[in-house]
């Protein structure tokens, strides 16, 4: 009798494990409450040093330096909107392949853990400890920010919450300046 009871309990426990696995997967696909913070507003970041050309580029961002046009998204491991930005990138493989991401964080480990929490296959990213590189080269100290670069030169810096809105705005800027 106790064997039957044990197996029934084991099956129930297994069903609960399955339920949690599905719940976790669902949560990762539909995003979280942070989506409610998202809007289509895109504003220029006044403090950024437009026209700056970095003297040295991190190896992971070497392609940005050579690209005619590139969109570099600056996120931080400690900002709530950035987590939502990463969720948006997780859900869109095409955008992931198109943009570059710079993760500003206190330690490389924290940066890796932040990135690892999302689907990042195909994403080209660089972990910038303390945001020192992006701060020094472009005077960017807030996030999330989209940096529009032309031949490695900073054309514009845009504050945003929606990646789609940022890409649309960046596309317009590139179109106007071409």
């Amino acid at each position, binding site marked *: 009798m106790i064997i039957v009871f044990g197996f029934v309990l084991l099956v129930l426990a297994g069903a609960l494990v399955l339920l949690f696995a599905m719940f976790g997967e669902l949560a990762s696909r539909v995003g979280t409450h942070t989506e409610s*913070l998202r809007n289509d507003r895109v504003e220029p970041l006044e403090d950024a040093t437009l026209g700056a050309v970095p003297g040295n580029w991190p190896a992971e961002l070497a392609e940005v330096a050579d690209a005619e046009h590139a969109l570099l998204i600056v996120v931080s491991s400690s900002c709530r909107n950035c987590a939502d930005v990463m969720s948006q990138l997780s859900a869109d493989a095409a955008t992931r392949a198109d943009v570059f991401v710079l993760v500003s964080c206190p330690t490389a480990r924290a940066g890796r853990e932040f990135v690892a929490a999302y689907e990042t296959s195909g994403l080209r990213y660089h972990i910038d400890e303390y945001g020192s590189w992006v701060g020094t080269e472009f005077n960017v100290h807030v996030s999330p920010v989209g940096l529009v670069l032309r031949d490695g030169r900073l054309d514009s810096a845009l504050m945003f919450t929606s990646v789609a809105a940022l890409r649309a705005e960046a596309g317009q800027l590139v179109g106007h300046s071409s």
Partner: protein
Amino acid sequence: MTTTGWVEAVINSLAAALLLNAGLHKVVVPGRLREALGELLGRRSNFVSHSLVRTLAGLEIVSALALTVAPVRMYGAVAAGVLGLVFAAAGLAGRLRRSTLSCGCLGGSGGRALGMFNIVVGLALAGVAVLNTGVASSQVDDGYAGAVTLWAAFFALMFCGWANRRLIHDVFRAPVQVGSEMGK
């Protein structure tokens, strides 16, 4: 049951619960492990499909169930040991290659990549195989299956709760204030 039999039952139920969690999670979410292995193996990862991950998950579940049935527990233990060595090898490779992608291993919904955790758990499972085949060759009575299934169910719930603690925390957390701040 003898004291050795009880110890064997507890350890086998722990191993069964661990494998059950890992297997059932992989059945639902095979993509995470596939991507983590893809990062690890690079171009050689073409053979790692969702079906392969689900087959591995099936082996884990069968091993877990075998551990709970006295006559076949030895086979279950050997399978658990082999799987443990595979986990440990994957963890070692992940650590050496500094894997960053979350593997969703052992039912975890967090961001843990292949690494030291997998090595430790893998070697522990290998230890279960050694215990069953070497040390605990004692005969177990009818109480074994009942005890192991009950404890395995309990441990499976505990592991599941621990692996999904972030998710549970999020569910029970009070709604956050909606704002539109931009900044670090």
